[in-house]
C-alpha cells in the first residue's frame, strides 16, 4: 500500500494521466491512499524564491505519509526529484529538520525523517516485480519500437535518488518497455532535459530541446516515446508542432505516459487511457497494434 501523491499536472494539463495511472495500479493490486491534503512540491520553481519554504511544504507531505506508515508513490519525475532532494536535505541534517518542524508544529505534525518516496516506475521494477508485470499482459506490444525519455528529476542528482544503491532505476524504463514486448529505441537524449523548465523564460531554447530529442528518435525509426514525467510530456507533445516548425520538418512522434503504455499492454481501451487527448496523434501507433482511439 502506498500514500499516493498524484501531483498537480496529472489532473491539470495532463488529465489523462491520473485515471490511467490509477487504473494500471488496480490491475497490479497496488493499493493507494491518496494524500488529498498535500500541497504541490513547489516543482523547483517555488524553491527559486525560497528553498526553506519548499522543504517545509514537502516535509508536511512526508509527515502525513509517515503518520499513515506508508511510502509515497509519485507518477511524475519532477515531483519525485523535488521530493527526493527535499527529503535528502531534511534527513541528512537534524538541525535543519527540527527547524522545518517548527513550522509544522502548529498543525500538530512532526516529520521524523522515515518516509520513502518512489515513482510508479520504480515500484513496478522493485516492488511489484517483472514477473507480475508480465503476468498481467493481455496484448504484448510486439513490433512496437519505443524510445524511453526519463525526465531530469528521476535521474539526477543521483545521490538524492539513491541510484548508487538502486542501479536498476537508471534502466527501469527500458526494462518495462522490454517486459511489455516492445523494442527499445535507445538514444543519447533519453536522460537529457526536455526543456520544460525553460518554456516560460526562453521558449526558443526550450523548443530547440524538443526538436533535438524528438527528431533524433524519429530518425531512429521509433513509433513513440514513453515518459514517466507529465511535464516532459507537455513539452515534447504540446510544443512538437513548434519544434517541427523550428526544425522545418514534420516530426509527428507520439509521446505517451508510462501508465498509458502499460495500459495498452494490459488490454485497456485506448480511449479510457486518454490516448486521443494528445496533441501529436497516437493513431499511427495504435494502428500498428490494430487498435483505434
Amino acid at each position: 500500500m502506498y500514500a499516493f501523491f498524484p501531483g498537480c499536472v496529472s489532473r491539470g494539463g495532463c488529465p489523462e494521466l491520473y485515471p490511467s495511472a490509477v487504473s494500471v495500479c488496480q490491475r497490479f493490486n497496488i493499493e493507494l491512499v491518496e494524500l488529498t491534503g498535500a500541497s504541490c512540491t513547489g516543482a523547483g520553481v517555488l524553491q527559486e524564491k525560497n528553498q526553506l519554504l519548499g522543504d517545509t511544504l514537502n516535509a508536511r507531505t512526508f509527515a502525513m505519509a509517515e503518520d499513515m506508515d506508508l511510502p509515497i508513490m509519485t507518477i511524475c519525475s519532477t515531483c519525485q526529484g523535488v521530493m527526493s532532494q527535499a527529503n535528502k536535505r531534511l534527513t541528512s541534517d537534524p538541525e535543519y529538520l527540527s527547524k522545518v518542524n517548527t513550522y509544522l508544529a502548529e498543525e500538530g505534525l512532526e516529520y521524523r525523517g522515515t518516509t520513502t518516496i518512489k515513482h510508479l516506475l520504480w515500484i513496478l521494477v522493485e516492488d511489484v516485480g517483472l514477473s507480475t508485470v508480465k503476468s498481467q499482459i493481455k496484448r504484448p506490444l510486439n513490433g512496437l519500437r519505443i524510445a524511453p525519455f526519463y525526465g531530469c528529476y528521476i535521474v539526477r542528482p543521483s545521490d538524492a535518488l539513491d541510484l548508487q544503491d538502486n542501479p536498476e532505476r537508471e534502466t527501469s524504463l527500458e526494462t518495462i518497455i522490454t517486459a511489455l514486448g516492445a523494442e527499445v529505441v535507445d538514444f543519447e537524449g533519453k536522460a537529457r532535459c526536455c526543456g520544460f523548465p525553460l518554456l516560460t523564460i526562453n521558449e526558443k531554447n526550450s523548443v530547440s530541446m524538443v526538436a533535438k530529442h524528438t527528431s533524433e528518435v524519429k530518425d531512429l525509426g521509433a513509433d513513440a516515446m514513453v515518459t514517466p514525467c507529465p511535464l516532459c510530456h507537455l513539452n515534447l507533445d504540446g510544443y512538437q508542432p513548434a519544434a517541427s516548425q523550428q526544425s522545418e520538418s514534420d516530426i509527428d512522434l507520439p509521446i505517451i505516459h508510462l501508465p498509458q503504455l502499460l495500459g495498452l499492454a494490459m488490454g485497456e481501451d485506448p480511449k479510457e487511457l486518454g490516448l486521443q487527448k494528445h496533441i501529436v496523434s497516437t493513431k499511427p501507433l495504435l494502428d500498428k497494434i490494430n487498435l483505434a482511439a
Partner: protein
Amino acid sequence: MDTSLAIKRFDPEAENAKPYWQEFSLNLEQSATVLDALIMIREEIDGSLALRCSCRSAICGSCAMRVNGKAVLACKTRIENVSDNSRPISIEPAGIMPVIKDLVVDMDLFWNKVKEITPWLETEGVEPKEEYIASNESMVNLASVMNCIMCGACVSDCTVLEVDPAFIGPAALAKAYRFVGDPRDSKNKERLEVLDQYSGIWDCTRCMECVEVCPKDVAPMDRIMELREKAIQTGFNKTTGAKHAEAFTKIIEHSGSLDELKLPIKTFGILNMPLNMLPVGLRAAAKGKMPPVIHPSIPEVEKVKRIFDKFEEEEIENQEE
C-alpha cells in the same frame, strides 16, 4: 584486468579530417584510472594520441573528457567503475567546446564566459594595510564553490549550451556566485543586475547535469538557484523568470496546488501574454487536454496558508531588524 576502450579520434591535419572511433585492448592494473589507460596507449601503442593532463590527482582540471557519454576527470575515474564487459568503454573529448585534436578541446569558450562575470573581487573604501579580511562564518557558503578547478566538465554537459551558445553557462555562474556571496565585494548589486539579464541566471533549465558531473561538488545549478533567490531579494523581480517564481509561489499559497491556467496570466499579465502560446492552448483545448477553468483548492489549504503566513511574518521581522 583486460579492458577495451573505444576512443573518438580526430586529426585536423589528416586528409579529409573527420572524427572516427578507434578501439584499443589493454591489460591494466585493477586500480588503473582512465587516464592511466590513455597514457599507456600513448606511450606503448600510439604516440599520436592527443590528450591533456598534468597533476593526475584531480587538482589541475586538465583531463575533463566524456567517458561513456558523461563528463568526468579521467584521472579521477577508475576503469573498473566504468567498464561493462559487454562493450568497450567509450572515451570522447568534452562536449560544447571545439575539438583541437583527439581528446584535446579548445577552452577559449570556457574562459571567455568566466571572464564575462568579472572574476575578481571589487572592493571599495580605504585599502587595508594588509589583506582584506572576511570572517570564517561569512565564507562557509563559498567553500564548495571555491573548490572549482575550472575543468569544464559542467560546460561540456550543459543542456542549454547544447542549444544556445550565448548562455553564460554553469561554470561562469558558479564563479559569479563566489563573488556575489563574498562580503568583501562591493559590487554585489551590480553583478546581480548583469546576471539577471538575458542568457544569465534565468536561462538555466535546472536539468542538474552540471551538479551530477562536477568532480568537485561545486553543484553549479544549486549556486544558480541561490543567485536567483538573491536577485529576487535584492529587488530584481522584473524578469519573466522572477515573475514566474513569484506567480507560482502565490498560486500555491492561494490554492495549495498549481493552477496551470493562472500561472502564465499571472507571470506575463493578461495583456502581455505571448501570442505564440495561443495556438498551443487552442490545440490542447480542442483535444480536451485542459486543466479545469475553475481550479479547486486542496482540502487543507488553510493549513498550507498558515505556513506561508509564518514565513511572511518572519520576513517582516527580519526586515525590521
